[in-house]
């Protein structure tokens, strides 16, 4: 009985957490790509906004009828912003922190500006959930993990597997890690540090843009100002929590997503705390995702302190350090 309630609760949480944090998953993967080659892009928040607003423009103003094409347009827009960022920090060796913050704030402002006159307009071009061939009906216990749209599966399964394989099973991945850990050594064996860093930051920006596009093409089918609302920052925290490993990012994103879902699910299902009224509970629950994010970041830091798996949970050694061949 108790077990059934807990199982039911867990599944309803996960069922709504999975789509809710797909945007965090995509942005975290994008941020991780850049960070693996030593480029810290704090502008995730802005890139989500840019990806989202261009998808909205594509659908509402350009009449795009395929959600995939709308998402691609959002990704391209974010990639352009990512290219500007990459040129600044890689080619001109500007501070990654400052340019990243500028991208975050500038991206939010730009997307809000472009989104004017499109606020609250419903978007009908949406990703549709995949029904697994009538094999399951959506009352099954496992249904929490199915009946999502295809982007969810790409974000949680496709991308992490591909990224893991490339990073840890290919020579290309070895080179990527070398660029992030020791760019001078990579340079010495003929890897173009500048080229790789620009390429992967742009690719990462495009993935983050896909996260923004996903928000407006499935999760909440409408534009609103400040659309990312902290999800970009959470994605950066998830990368740290994951120790720069793709598989752990899935756990981090789901943890955050569950806390976000807990806010509304707990209220809708009448779960309460004995010492807190329903109104106070609503405030407590909206705080929870950020508290949990904070604690989650401390876990890998604690692991380092305890000497466990230090090498794999530490940041890439050259993260946020501009590379200059003359200075090596």
């Amino acid at each position, binding site marked *: 009985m108790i077990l059934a309630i807990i199982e039911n609760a867990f599944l309803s949480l996960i069922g709504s957490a999975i789509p809710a944090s797909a945007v965090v998953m995509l942005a975290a993967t994008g941020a991780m790509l850049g960070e693996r080659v030593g480029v810290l892009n704090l502008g995730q928040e802005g890139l989500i906004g840019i990806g989202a607003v261009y998808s909205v423009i594509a659908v509402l103003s350009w009449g795009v009828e395929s959600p995939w094409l709308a998402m691609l347009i959002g990704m391209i827009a974010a990639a352009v912003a990512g290219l500007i960022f990459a040129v600044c920090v890689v080619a001109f060796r500007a501070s990654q922190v400052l340019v990243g913050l500028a991208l975050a704030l500038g991206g939010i402002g730009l997307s809000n500006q472009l989104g004017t006159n499109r606020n*609250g307009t*419903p978007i009908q071009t949406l990703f549709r959930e995949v029904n697994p061939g009538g094999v399951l009906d959506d009352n099954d216990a496992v249904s929490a993990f199915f009946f999502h749209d295809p982007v969810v599966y790409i974000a949680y399964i496709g991308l992490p597997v591909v990224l893991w394989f490339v990073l840890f099973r290919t020579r290309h991945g070895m080179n990527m890690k070398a660029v992030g850990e020791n760019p001078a050594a990579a340079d010495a064996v003929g890897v173009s540090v500048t080229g790789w860093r620009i390429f992967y930051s742009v690719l990462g920006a495009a993935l983050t843009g896909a996260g923004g596009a996903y928000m407006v093409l499935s999760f*909440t*089918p409408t534009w609103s100002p400040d659309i990312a609302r902290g999800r970009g920052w959470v994605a950066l925290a998830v990368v740290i929590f994951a120790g720069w490993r793709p598989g752990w990012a899935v756990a981090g994103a789901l943890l955050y997503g569950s806390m976000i879902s807990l*806010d509304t699910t707990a209220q809708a299902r*009448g779960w309460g705390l004995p010492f807190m009224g329903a*109104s106070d509970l609503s405030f407590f629950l909206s705080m929870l995702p950020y508290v949990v994010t904070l604690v989650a970041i401390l876990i890998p830091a604690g692991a380092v302190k305890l000497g466990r798996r230090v090498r794999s949970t530490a940041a890439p050694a050259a993260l946020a350090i501009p590379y200059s061949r003359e200075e090596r």
Partner: protein
Amino acid sequence: MTDSNQDRRLILPRRESISRRQALKMGAFGIGGIAVGGSILAACGDDEDDAAAPATTAAPATTAAPAPAGKESIKAAWVYIGPPDDNGWTQEHDRGRLAAEAALGDRLTTSFVPNIGFDAGTTETFQQLVDDGNDIIFANTEYAGLLTTVSDAAPDTKFCEINGHYYSDNLFPFYLAHEKTAYQLGVAAGHLAGNGRIGYIGAFPTATAFNDVNGLLLGARSVNPDATVETVLVSTFFDPQKAAQAANALLDAGVDFLFGVMDEPTFLQLSEEAGVWTGYWNLDFRSAAPTKYVSHFDLSEFGPFYTEQCQRVLDGTWVAHDDVVLLDTPIGDFGPNVPQDVQDAVLDAGAKLDSGELHVYEGPLFDNEGNERLAAGQTLDSLEAYAIDWPVDGVTGISPV
């Protein structure tokens, strides 16, 4: 319509109740955002008078006893919590602004500032509008201390703050008598929600939310005595992502009717997809839920109100009311699939509420913690409802303040 302004206006004695500001304080505390919370608390703190002091020195010295003479033309400004194209709350206010502009022609110049949230920058915005020479400034959410800091220091500028709780010589609050409208929508929900479960997406535990959920529940129970209202509070009026999550959570939990105080219509779309009846606060937005749309709260009284206030400034007859001005909030047109007998029942309830034959709040009534709030035969009028701080028994997810 123009003659009945006096009838439309109801007077509320000054009374302390939870304000949106207090709720925000709690929200800021809850979110734990140090920067945001700090700035709100700083701006709303008890040292408002000190903060206002530097600004006061300039204004009053130059303005000794202005004669109540009329003006050729005036400038009016609106401060909006959201964008004027949100298909909701702010859009209705902007329609009111344009109506005032149309009515007064060249004599009224208007402007607006969108997307003004709750932080120290808000105070700067109001100060800027005062400095720009606006004669009257309207706020479409309760900014409380963020606004009154400025209004107290600018006695020559008039202010009207929606849903406010502060009164001075140049500022008074106005709002909507919406508990009746919620009751009427509740009657519809009582007929339409097969399982009697009504979902409500609220923002903060304020009188607005209490009147919404109480009206819904009492209206629904007049039809179905087992009806319940399940509330999710999301601590914001404009965040489609959060509204969507709340809507999904309520729909997954199994409600058969979904309503909310959100400033934008995302939850209507989700309700339509789930095949659940839905209604909207602000305006007719049946396009978001073509088959499941029930009705909305009609906010078209903003135009006449704004026009009247601007006219009074022009005439030199503007005075701050001692009490809140409550505008009439009729129920809007029905969606295409609402059965005729339901429409009739809703309109019938509305007529009885207007005539005084029926009251939204009529004892005996208990709050949802089991305390008796109204004894048998006792009633609350709209003025008292404006300050209500408890949900009736049968409402969950929100507790008495």
